[in-house]
């Protein structure tokens, strides 16, 4: 690994990306601090309690859901395991607001369940509705993290514990569980950040958290300073969470990665527990996939929905026109940063990585507001252009692209580059002919991740979309706000199909485990 200064073509992107995250944040802080002086402090306390309550309840339910699910799908021999695992993780592809929309359209005296099948389901809204929609939306994060960690656990340690006389439960508690702690920690953090940053679900369910309050202040009362101050408090909460997780896990992962087991634990036969085990897995899948897809599918066929079919293509094209450049821009930024991190590790690369991650962790509504203030002050002609939206989305989701690219880079030995240079190729030639073909899969995976995230995104799009520019996400949200659930369905369906297509594309680029 070289200890020289990194070349300019790596430093420049790093500086640009850092600016893209820190400048909006700076403007948010400035506006927010001004607003905090005049903000209504009793509301802050109330909002904080409501937001914290939601985070806590969602996390609790996610743990109860994701833990057994991960265990069953890794350690127990169930039929069609791979299919079930994929289906259990798929709710990730559905945006939270689509889930909220499905729950709202389903229940109530006039809901889908009542009119189609005579079922009297309660129409969940407020805390209950937001909770359920967010639980379904976020449990895959925890599930995938836990599953990953469980697959990595070395069975030899468990067997040693058992041979020393420990009960199966004791072995689990004292050998396996500690090894899951990092995954639990990072998964929980992801869940908490998503709940904090969520805007679509809490707005549709009318449960007032920070995000919903920010939206109300900004777009209804047009009190941008009040909105900024709330956004600042929200961002600080997210930062506090990040810090807590960092401190909590620092002890656990000190000393680098633990040795990975050469073999995996054999899945145990379920025996008499097969029906309840399978039943549980199927129940989660039915809830996470069946309900939203069922509602969207049946409402898309409703006569009222047919009136908007023509608009779906336009909105879909608008979505692509934003998500595709955002993905390209994110990868274009992530590649030099990942390169910096792997070839020139040091303080600079660590700082830039932290900054990128910060851009991802900032609640999107807050980041979007920061961009609005930034553009209005620094680059007013660019206000309300698609370019700003693309940049904001690329900056926000860049962290998702860095992961796959860094893994791909990590597997590329430096010797390959050196061999190429020794044989007379220029630096650019070496990159293009040797490195790029081997990085393609990582780059593609990164681009697909950002594309999917940008296509479904709502809060930043809501704040920064140009004059009359509407995307699939915005249409679903605005029709859902009007309680025009049938009209929202075709757009939701298009979004779901788009996500599913991209998710399947990603699965094909991924190495199978």
């Amino acid at each position, binding site marked *: 690994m070289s200890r020289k200064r990194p070349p300019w073509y790596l430093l420049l992107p790093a500086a640009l990306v850092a600016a893209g995250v820190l400048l909006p944040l700076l403007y948010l802080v400035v506006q927010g601090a001004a607003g905090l002086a005049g903000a209504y402090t009793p509301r802050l306390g109330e909002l904080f309690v409501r937001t914290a309550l939601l985070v806590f309840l969602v996390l609790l339910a996610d743990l109860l859901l994701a833990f057994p699910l991960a265990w069953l799908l890794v350690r127990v021999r169930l039929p069609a395991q791979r299919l079930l695992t994929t289906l259990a993780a798929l709710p990730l592809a559905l945006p939270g607001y689509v889930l909220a929309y499905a729950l709202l359209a389903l229940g109530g005296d*006039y809901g889908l369940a009542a009119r189609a099948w005579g079922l009297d389901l309660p129409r969940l809204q407020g805390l209950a509705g937001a909770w359920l929609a967010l639980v379904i939306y976020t449990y895959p994060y925890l599930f995938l993290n836990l599953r990953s960690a469980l697959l990595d656990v070395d069975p030899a340690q468990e067997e040693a514990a058992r041979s020393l006389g420990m009960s199966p439960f004791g072995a689990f508690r004292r050998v396996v569980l500690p090894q899951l702690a990092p995954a639990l920690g990072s998964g929980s953090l992801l869940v908490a950040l998503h709940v904090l940053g969520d805007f679509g679900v809490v707005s549709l369910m009318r449960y007032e958290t920070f995000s919903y309050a920010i939206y109300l202040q900004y777009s209804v009362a*047009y009190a941008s300073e009040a909105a900024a101050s709330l956004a600042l408090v929200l961002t600080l909460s997210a930062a506090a969470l990040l810090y807590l997780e960092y401190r909590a896990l620092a002890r656990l992962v000190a000393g680098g990665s633990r040795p990975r087991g050469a073999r995996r634990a054999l899945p145990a036969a379920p025996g008499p527990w097969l029906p309840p085990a399978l039943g549980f897995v199927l129940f989660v899948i039915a809830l996470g996939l069946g309900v939203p897809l069922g509602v969207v599918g049946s409402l898309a066929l409703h006569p*009222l929905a047919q009136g908007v079919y023509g608009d779906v293509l336009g909105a879909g094209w608008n979505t692509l026109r934003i998500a595709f*450049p955002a993905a*390209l821009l994110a990868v274009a930024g992530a590649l030099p940063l990942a390169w910096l991190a792997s070839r020139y590790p040091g303080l600079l690369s660590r700082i830039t990585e932290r900054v990128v991650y910060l851009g991802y962790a900032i609640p999107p509504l807050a980041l979007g507001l920061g961009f609005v203030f930034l553009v209005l002050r620094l680059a007013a002609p660019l206000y309300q252009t698609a370019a700003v939206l693309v940049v904001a989305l690329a900056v926000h989701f860049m962290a998702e692209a860095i992961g796959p690219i860094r893994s791909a880079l990590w597997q590329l030995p430096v010797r390959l580059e050196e061999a190429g240079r020794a044989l007379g190729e220029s630096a650019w030639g070496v990159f293009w002919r040797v490195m790029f073909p081997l990085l393609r899969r990582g780059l593609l995976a990164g681009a697909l991740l950002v594309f999917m995230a940008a296509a479904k995104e709502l809060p930043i799009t809501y704040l920064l979309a140009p004059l009359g520019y509407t995307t699939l996400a915005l249409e679903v949200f605005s029709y859902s*706000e*009007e*309680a025009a659930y049938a009209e929202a369905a075709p757009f939701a369906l298009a979004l779901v199909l788009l996500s599913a297509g991209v998710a399947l594309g990603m699965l094909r680029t991924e190495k199978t485990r």
Partner: protein
Amino acid sequence: MRHKGTVGATGLLIALLLGTSLAASPELVVYSGRSKSLVQPVIDAFSQKTGVRVRVKYGKTAALALLLLEEGRRSPADLFWGQDAGALGLLARNGRFEALPENLLAQVPARFRSAQGFWVGVTGRARTLAYSTQRLREDELPASVFDLTEPRWKGRVGWAPGNASFQSFVTAMRAQHGDEATLGWLEAMKANGAVAYPKNTAILQGIAAGEVDVGLPNHYYLLRFKRADPDYPVAQTFFAPGDAGNLVNVAGVGVVRGSRHRREALELIAYLLDPATQAYFTQEVFEYPLVDGVEAAAGLPAGLQELRRLAPPVDLDHLYDLEGTLELLRRAGLL
């Protein structure tokens, strides 16, 4: 894999997408506080008929009005179509509108346009009391909007504090009864557990879904629901004559001062006041036509004449003080 082919194709695709992103500017820019489902068909028909291209920015009337104020001369807007007279009055007071020609103004009765001629009403909209036909009888309904703070209505009322029409209604209440009484009513309603919905349609759906029993929407939403489903379990009525809850407002338009497409904007206004379009508004959107000679659609609650009797005595020009209303709503903790 053929690198050059992929690179070329990707480059072309990028260029195409970026090119369309920076597309040419539209002919006429409209800021519409009215929802897309109501407005877009009219705009499309106008474009087809006159060949004028229109770009519409949809949003909340209050936010768009304040945006117009903040943008000032830099605003790209040519025409403002507000959901209520309040925003129109605000923009007129701030000199953001150009005076309209007399021939356009004369088509609408005096009480439905600006006295100085800065804006003109396009359609009439009445505030009503919507209620569940399954859980309430007509004789159980309150006579005044102020009665909704009584204990028997606890948690049974739906409203939309964020909605422009509601905010205009609050401004009218302030004009009729004063700020103190209005603030008192807002706080009492909140304490009585009134359920806040984002939109009027959501209020009606809330009544149908059984979440609330009564609501305060505009008159025309229910008619659209009923057209889709004649058995929709919600009905609507008015409060006692002269009650604040019966406000008759207008959706109207004004040409933004400094607009570079004044001719096209006036063409659009003329199109909106054309009897054929007015007939569309009443037949398809169920609003009250304001132009002489156009009959209100069947099924509208009360004819335009009776509405004058039911409406509270408030001058629409006085609904401009949106800021004051927003401040009141904030103080009541509703925003």
